[in-house]
């Protein structure tokens, strides 16, 4: 049949993962995260937060209204920007932010996650998740705005600091479980040998890295409003700004997914069975819930912390987080030597 290749292309699982789970799922999670961030911050600050858009839903529709506004808003392109980069960078950053989702399995059944059963999924997911900051720097640079350039410079400083932390602390899971395959990492943690319990140091370092990489509080430095307006995004408006802002939440979610798999045991203690419900839906919900907890915790931090100064954040990374990550890695080696997982 001539239709077969086309059908195969349409039903090609990675495509589904990117389109359905990656895009829509990330969007949904981003919306929940934004809503929670506003609502939690409002509660801590003794306000109500989003309310009037839908009092019964706690103002959740407010976020959708916000999205609609961003999309319909006039797109103002200053005359002095480098147009091609200005358009491409935020969109590319958003897409690249979602890409790691392909390599993150939400179930151990290979029939649902053919790509995920590859042996280097953790490495590739990590590698992809470190790409978007480069595009953010490009976005800031192309804006031809002094605040944007300062913001980009800060972003580049922060990347150099957190990247090593993120990679070393997350790879410490591989050191302990002797595999780069995320499915095997999760299976090794069944049922309650979660790495957060066995190796909390690496987990702490990983969370610090996520905080820095997605410029969450207390490391919200590149976009720090009171010096550099909106950092790299200063000149952006409308949908392009929404891409920039959404990208940060998606990146946070992707990191949270990786951490949920690596440290929080993924779908453990549940063991995926055959069939779409037991093999696909239930484990994905468990993983997404675990990831959401991390995302919501990060959102909550906005309410209680201020932001560090740039040099203090970098100092925290080099003096505290990197040693922590290395100690965590060594701890993992020790775990592997003792043979906890095997």
């Amino acid at each position, binding site marked *: 049949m001539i239709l077969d290749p086309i059908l195969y292309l349409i039903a090609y699982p990675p495509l589904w993962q990117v389109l359905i789970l990656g895009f829509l799922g990330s969007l949904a999670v981003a919306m929940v995260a934004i809503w929670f961030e506003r609502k939690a911050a409002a*509660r801590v600050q003794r*306000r*109500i937060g989003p*309310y009037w858009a839908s009092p019964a839903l706690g103002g959740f529709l407010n976020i959708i209204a916000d999205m609609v506004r961003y999309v319909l808003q006039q797109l103002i392109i200053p005359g002095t920007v480098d147009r091609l980069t200005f358009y491409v960078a935020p969109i590319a950053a958003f897409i690249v932010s979602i890409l790691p989702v392909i390599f993150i399995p939400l179930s151990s059944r290979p029939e649902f996650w053919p790509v995920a059963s590859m042996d280097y999924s953790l490495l590739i997911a990590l590698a992809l998740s470190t790409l978007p900051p480069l595009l953010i720097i490009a976005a800031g640079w192309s804006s031809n705005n002094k605040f944007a350039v300062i913001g980009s410079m800060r972003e580049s400083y922060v990347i150099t600091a957190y990247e090593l932390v993120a990679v070393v602390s997350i790879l410490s899971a591989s050191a302990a479980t002797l595999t780069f395959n995320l499915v095997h990492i999760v299976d090794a943690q069944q049922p309650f040998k979660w790495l957060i319990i066995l190796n909390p140091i690496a987990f702490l370092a990983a969370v610090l890295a996520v905080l820095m990489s997605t410029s969450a509080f207390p490391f919200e430095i590149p976009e720090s409003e009171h010096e550099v307006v909106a950092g790299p995004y200063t000149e952006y408006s409308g949908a392009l700004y929404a891409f920039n802002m959404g990208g940060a939440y998606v990146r946070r979610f992707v990191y949270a997914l990786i951490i949920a798999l690596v440290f929080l045991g993924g779908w453990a203690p549940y063991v995926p069975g055959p069939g779409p419900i037991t093999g696909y839906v239930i484990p994905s919900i468990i993983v997404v819930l675990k990831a959401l907890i991390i995302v919501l915790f990060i959102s*909550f931090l906005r309410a*209680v912390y201020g932001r560090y100064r740039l040099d203090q954040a970098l100092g925290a990374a080099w003096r505290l987080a990197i040693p922590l990550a290395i100690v965590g890695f060594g701890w993992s080696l020790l775990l592997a030597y003792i043979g906890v997982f095997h």
Partner: protein
Amino acid sequence: MPPKISLKKLDRRGGLFEGVKSNIHTLALGVKYLVDPQRSTLLYPKEYIEHRPGYRGFIIFIKDKCISCAACARICPSAAMKMVRVTEIDPKHPDKPRQKQYPVINYQRCIFCGFCVDVCPTEALYHVPFHDIVYENLADMFLSLEMFQVEPQRPATSEGLPVVYEVDEIKGLVKRRKS
């Protein structure tokens, strides 16, 4: 006892233990209010504040008491109150129309200081305890003599419930619905 000056020292504690402890304090306090926010937000216009008597709101003019002394217009710090000259017929002497002057007010300028109310020798001006009124255009904010004498309708009363705020020892401001 007379006031005095006291030199204080900054409580600069350091160390890992203190750092962890104060971080935990901070987070715990955040969680406490996340669970129980103790908020006092006014859901305007579903609710509106009923102010205490003595609140300096819109100013209403009682023409019968006015003796045309113009003290109110002269003391107005923002030149919001102006005098207009009106020819009136005195009921006692209907044949002799007399000229009187009355105040009118420009709410584009009024700052609600209440000097006019306080200076009026016959209490011909008084405050109503609110000032959330909507005007459709700026010209309407210059009230004519007739408009100046009617108490304006407060729009929030048509769709909202009155609340009062009380100072509470535990929760700060507490909103109470008035039945």
